[in-house]
């Protein structure tokens, strides 16, 4: 019997093969074969991931370290190419390959209008993305994680700018890459600091309770760990689109919709959460950073939710919603509820992927239209899309018993015991979420159709390659929460939390968790759920018979519609001054300062060589002249030093 951990390399290898086959054979392979290969390799990885999960859940499992070869090995620094598989990895493996597979299937239909080469390019990039993402979560040290980390950033860049003839899309792609790089600067400095302090980047060395960080640093809030944790968090704000580096994500919606679902909702943007969950010991030992993480997460959650209220592009609403939901996950991490954050990653992957895929189905039916003010009444024509979208809205709003309820509640409960103010703001954010989601739902699916007659005629339910993933994800969104039922309802109901607990065991020992009485918890839960339900109904009623031009626009509304002008502010305080400075250095400093000096020397020599008639002008002349000067200098030095 083959040990699954011995062949763990196959999990990323299959997507890599898919990338190579589709990438190199893009001119020869037919579209149906391309789509088949692209999806098949992910399906194989998914099956292997299930096997890994089964083996990880067995009694007596210990984290597996698989060392392949030495990536960098110089006297003091050894960075092997290694994988580490534990509970956290296996959960992410399932999310990535599972949701990834559904989105590949969806894409086979969604991208069918592309020409053959474009279709193959799309699938090869998508496969490469899955490969990179798997590398990110399988890596056994920070350098391998960084490889995957940059790899997913690259794929995100390539896929946002997939339709590269449109320069707006290209700009969005470039912006995403550069903003991610700003975060990566922090990440890699964090890695340097880890190497400098501990001499290793391997998790099994760093996080070993006896010999790792905890054996070297025993007091909380040591400057080194605050520094490292803040730098790593800087990396997370880039990849997971948190304040101040979130502005690339809404623009990233330029990519094909399945890409938005996979990369910019379900998987890549959760890499930051994975990274912090993986580094939980560093964060637990730096409570200062944890409060920063919590505050940034909460602020992002609220800020993005407010912007989402007034967006009219179906994908932009979902994009800001993603930013906001990621904020919740960081809130969870910041208050020490690591497994709750991972739980929310999982449920969010289900319902947000579903929302994006549903949006894609709608956009397809509308012939490319993305403005929800021009939709309406689609529920009658697109029953499956409507129902699944509705389930997703219930899940993201956090209504029981849908999946989002459980994960969000676990985060909010932990926030309450850390600081009740976090809880109150968090619930306010949840109400905003409920509002903008049901506004979106009502504008899209309820009321009368507001588009053109041609569009109305064209409206249809999408084919089964699109509806099948929708149905799968809808089921998961509906019941996915049951893996994490709070203790107050069912004893040992939080099976995901129990499953993940070994990963966070050392941190949980160090955290001083406040306790909330069960009665209070139930009361809070009931009140918040009722409020959310009320808001849902309110938003639905308000927007189900929406007519264009009926909304008033105050100054604040205008600011929201323009996303608080954050892009414009960045542009005027960073981008433009930098460009100006660049031109100043290139045109003024470079031309007048150093260069003029050297040219002056050149001219001077030219001039003197012309004056000294017995020398030839130009090359040879100055050569000899310089030689003479040099020999003189040599003599002078000799005289002075003797």
């Amino acid at each position, binding site marked *: 019997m083959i040990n699954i951990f011995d062949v763990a390399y196959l999990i990323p290898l299959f997507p890599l093969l898919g990338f190579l086959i589709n*990438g190199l054979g*893009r001119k020869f392979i037919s579209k149906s074969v391309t789509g088949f290969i692209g999806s098949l390799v992910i399906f194989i990885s998914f099956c292997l991931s299930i096997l890994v999960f089964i083996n990880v859940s067995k009694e007596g499992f210990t984290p597996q370290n698989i060392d392949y*070869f*030495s*990536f*960098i*090995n*110089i*006297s*003091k*620094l050894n960075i092997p190419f290694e994988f580490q598989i534990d509970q956290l990895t296996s959960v992410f493996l399932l999310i990535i390959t599972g949701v990834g597979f559904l989105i590949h299937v969806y894409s086979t239909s969604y991208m069918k209008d592309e020409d053959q*080469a474009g279709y193959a390019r799309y699938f090869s990039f998508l496969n490469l993305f899955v490969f990179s993402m798997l590398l990110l979560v399988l890596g056994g040290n920070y*350098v391998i994680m*960084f*490889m995957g980390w*940059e*790899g997913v950033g*690259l794929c995100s860049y390539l896929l946002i*700018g997939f339709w*590269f*003839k449109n*320069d707006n899309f*290209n*700009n969005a792609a*470039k912006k995403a*890459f*550069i903003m991610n*790089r*700003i975060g*990566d*600067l922090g990440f*890699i*400095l964090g890695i*340097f*600091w880890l*190497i*400098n302090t501990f001499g290793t980047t391997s998790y099994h060395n760093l996080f070993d309770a006896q010999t790792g960080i905890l054996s070297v640093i025993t007091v909380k809030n040591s400057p080194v760990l605050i520094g490292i944790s803040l730098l790593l968090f800087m990396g997370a704000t880039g990849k997971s689109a948190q304040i101040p580096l979130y502005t690339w994500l809404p623009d990233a919606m330029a990519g094909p919709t399945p890409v938005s679902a996979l990369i910019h909702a379900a998987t890549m943007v959760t890499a930051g959460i994975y990274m912090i969950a993986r580094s939980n010991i560093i964060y637990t030992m730096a409570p200062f950073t944890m409060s920063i993480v919590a505050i940034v997460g909460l602020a992002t959650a609220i800020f993005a939710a407010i912007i989402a209220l007034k967006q009219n592009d179906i994908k932009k609403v979902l994009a800001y919603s993603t930013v906001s939901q990621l904020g919740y996950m960081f809130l969870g991490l910041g208050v020490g509820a690591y497994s709750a954050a991972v739980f929310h990653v999982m449920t969010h992957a289900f319902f947000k992927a579903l929302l994006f895929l549903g949006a894609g189905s709608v956009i397809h039916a509308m012939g490319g239209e993305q403005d929800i003010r021009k939709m309406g009444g689609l529920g009658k024509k697109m029953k499956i899309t409507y129902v699944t979208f509705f389930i997703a809205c219930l899940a993201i709003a956090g209504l029981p018993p849908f999946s989002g309820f459980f994960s969000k509640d676990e985060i909010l409960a932990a926030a309450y015991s850390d600081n009740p103010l976090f809880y109150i703001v968090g619930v306010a954010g949840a109400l905003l979420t409920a509002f903008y989601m049901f506004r979106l739902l009502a504008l899209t699916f309820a009321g009368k159709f507001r588009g053109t007659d041609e569009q109305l005629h064209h409206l249809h339910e999408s084919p089964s390659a699109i509806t099948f993933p929708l149905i799968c994800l809808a089921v998961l969104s509906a019941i996915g929460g049951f893996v994490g039922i709070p203790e107050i309802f069912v004893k040992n109901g939080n099976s995901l939390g129990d499953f993940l607990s070994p990963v966070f065991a050392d941190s949980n020992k160090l955290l001083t968790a406040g306790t909330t009485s069960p009665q209070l918890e139930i009361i809070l839960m009931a009140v918040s759920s009722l409020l959310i339900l009320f808001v849902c109904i309110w938003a639905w009623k308000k927007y189900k018979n929406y007519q264009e031009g009926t909304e008033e626009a105050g100054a604040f509304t205008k600011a929201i519609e323009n996303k608080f002008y954050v892009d414009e502010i960045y542009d005027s305080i960073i981008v433009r001054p*930098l460009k100006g400075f*660049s*031109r100043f*250095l*290139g045109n003024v400093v*470079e031309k007048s300062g*150093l*260069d003029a000096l*050297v040219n002056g*020397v*050149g001219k001077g020599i*030219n001039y003197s060589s012309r004056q000294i008639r017995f020398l030839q002008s130009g*090359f040879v002349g*100055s*050569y000899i002249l*310089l*030689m003479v*000067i*040099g020999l003189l*200098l*040599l003599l002078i*030095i000799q005289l002075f*030093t003797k």
Partner: protein
Amino acid sequence: MLGTYYTFPELLLWIPLVTGIIIFFIKSPKAVKNFALFSSVATLVVSIISLCYTDFVHHPEYATYNNVSYVWLPYIGSSFSVGMDGMGFLLTFLTAFSFPLVFAATYKREYPNANVYYGLMLLVQAGLMGVFVAMDALVFYFFWELALIPMYFLCSRWGGEFRIRVTFKFFIYTFVSSLLMLIGIMFVYLHTPPVTALSEHSFYIKSFYSATLDASQQNMVFWLFFAAFAVKMPIFPFHSWQPDLYEQSSDSTVMVLSGIMVKMGIFGMLRWLLPIFPEAVEKNDTIILVMCIIGILYASIIALSQTDLKRIVAWSSIAHIGLMGAGIFARNNTSLQGVMLEMLNHGINIIALWIVVDIIEKKTGIRKISELGGLATKSSTLTTFFIIIVLANIGLPLTNGFVGEFLMFTGLFEYNKWMAVFACISIILSATYMLNMVQKVFFGNTNSITENVGSISGGQKFTLSVIVAAIIILGIYPGPVLHLTQDTVTDILQKFK
């Protein structure tokens, strides 16, 4: 036979030197090209074979295959000593590997006076090889000039319309600084211990290492050597010859100039400057590191607003070289290993960039990025190659660029955290200007200039495939290179105890 009659360093020297001289007498341009290509491939084969004889620890006899010394000028204590250690193997390989690529990539190009052109190119190659294998200061200086002088002619006779002016600037810079180095060599020579009865002093490298210089002398002569190497690299603020020269030089000249010749400066620092003047290095390292880091940021920021393809590549190269300078003066095992690896990587990557820039210029006739666009629809293969090369250039993991940069940054961080922070900002800037270039040239819609561009030729595909393979292999498995250069790094660091 091997080691008795001839050694690898000699072969690597003689092949280009002899063929270079022969080629002057060949008339047919086609024969010239083929002969030059043949010669460079022969050198590459020798270099590859020599790489099988690098394990001096387990096979002491291999050392004799790679080190040899002939009587040359015994009365002044100079002998024709050549030899290779890890760094020697690495850089001779880079030289041997690059020339066939350069010749193959520009095979279609017709140069006026092809025999002179290729003859000079091969002389440059011989000079470079000599610099990298010299174990005697006078031999080193001889080859240093042998590499530079043909280069002056290559730059001034083949190139753009302002070539004379920019070559003159290049000439002033390098000639003055070479002369300063010569003074430095003489000075150190006069303080070397006697080796043989025939002469009081010696030019042998080991004698230079053990020269008795007091602190103030070290400090003074240090700057003489530093000037020569810093100009050649170039380190900020000695760089102003470079962008102009790169812009004006012809395609294969600029590949050699930027891919290999700048390594002369880096090599010089590692081989001569650091081991001879350890105290002066320790005294002056902060100021030089600051210069390097200013240079990294200065060049990266200027690159942001450049519109000419060649100038973008030139400024990007200056930024990379600045980082290598910082890696040298941070002088710990990690940073020096990073520099070693980066010498190879930078050589490969920048030659690759020039090849693509050259292809674009040949196809469209322009280098201004704002006038290009949409090439991705015309040649997806070229686009793929170019994106991979760009990614290597901005140091994306799993490409060769990452490993070298990672090690240099790690080493710099070990030396001083804040310096590493400032130097690291370049990873954002390089992504910005490089991706901007990709976007402007390849993405968007085609225009009247780019819509008739065809796909690339088989030869170009082959050359670029070789380079891309090297980029990825070195990015995933850099171990052998790091292993190769460890001995040199250890030797250098022994001087700093």
